[in-house]
């Protein structure tokens, strides 16, 4: 009975389940997807047990099917995230996120002398290497790497 109840709360009829989010990135994912401004039904959990990640987060968004270009924005902080597209309570498609070719307004430029760290201008990076995560700032032309990457 209890088990059924949990399922009732967490299952969604139509929408997207984003699974395998690193637990400490959950709120950043919510923020990058601008879900705090979304007025539909959202369920999320964090610090759930995961064999792969240790602790993971999960987000279920009702009635929303993300465009690739939007959902790929989370790939920088949740590279292993899995998407389940739900229609009429069943999974109709599974997707992985992919690091986009251009990243706008998520990552801080590592160069303290870059204009983006001094004026209100959205950062813009060209992704030169996806595996190593080598980003070239379109403004100051300096490189930001995974090791020194900061999320805005």
């Amino acid at each position, binding site marked *: 009975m209890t088990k059924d109840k949990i399922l009732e709360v967490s299952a969604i009829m139509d929408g997207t389940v984003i699974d395998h989010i690193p637990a400490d990135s959950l709120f950043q994912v919510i923020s990058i997807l601008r879900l705090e401004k979304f007025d539909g039904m959202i369920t999320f959990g964090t610090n759930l047990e995961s064999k792969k990640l240790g602790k993971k987060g999960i987000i279920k968004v009702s009635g929303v099917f993300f465009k690739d270009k939007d959902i790929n924005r989370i790939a920088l902080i949740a590279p292993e995230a899995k998407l389940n597209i739900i229609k009429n309570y069943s999974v109709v498609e599974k997707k992985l996120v992919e690091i986009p070719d251009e990243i706008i307004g998520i990552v801080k430029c590592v160069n303290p002398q870059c*204009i983006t760290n001094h004026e209100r201008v959205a950062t813009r990076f060209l992704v030169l290497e996806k595996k190593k995560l080598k980003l070239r700032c379109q403004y*100051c032309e300096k490189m930001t790497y995974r090791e020194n990457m900061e999320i805005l």
Partner: protein
Amino acid sequence: MINKSLVSITDFSKANYLTILDISRKFEKDSYKDLLKGKVIATLFFEPSTRTRLSFESAINRLGGRTIGFSDSGTSSVTKGETLYDTIRVVSNYCEMIVMRHPLEGSARYASEISKIPVINAGDGANQHPSQTLLDLYSIQKTQGTLDDLKIFMVGDLKYGRTVHSLLMALSEFNTSFCFISPDELKMPDEYKMHLKAKGLNYSESRDLNESISEADIIYMTRVQKERFSDPIEYERTKNAYVLKNEMLRITKENMKVLHPLPRVNEINTDVDASPKAYYFQQTENGVYVRQAIISLILGLKV
């Protein structure tokens, strides 16, 4: 008229470079032409740079245009806390083109996105200074008669020197072979060497400024600055190793010229100045013609 901004040397193609060099030659023959009569160009210098500003203003004046602007941010609305965004939005209503120098990197790209008129980057921090590169190309072409198949030596601070990076990018279109001479701490960064490899161009690296310069068509000198060294002792050890002296020029080729973006401190001995191989002062004169050409190309003036 290409009506676009010049922010980074890579914004322009090889064809653009060659067009600018052609137009520059016309200005060298006859520099005073009223092509900008009645037109206004802004020179916004958020940090002082006497040589670059005067060179641009001379270019604009020779074209019959007028300039508005400021020569350092202390005399501008920046002191009142105005953002670059607001300054550019406003100034772009006053003139045909903006020439801008700013201490922050990427500021010129940002300005070119905001501005409805073309922006010429006259230096954005340590990032780009494309008119310098074009005047370097002009000087090389003028003294060597060609840009193709030359052997270029770059000496000094190759790690932080923006002029050598931009010049390398531009010359990589012309089958150049390079020799990089610098202390270990100031070596040419890997990304530029990778670029040359990808283009199939030859380069070599050395710590010593020695006999190998006998092969050079151009020696491009840069300043080794003390503050670039993490170890002050290392600086003291190396500072004199990258000074060009007149006696060293004896073994160099007849056609060889010494270039330097200036200001020079002590990396070229003053006894080089009198040598016919010293070209760094003529280089600055070329800068005016090249800037006239850049402005003409961007604004579509019929030269």
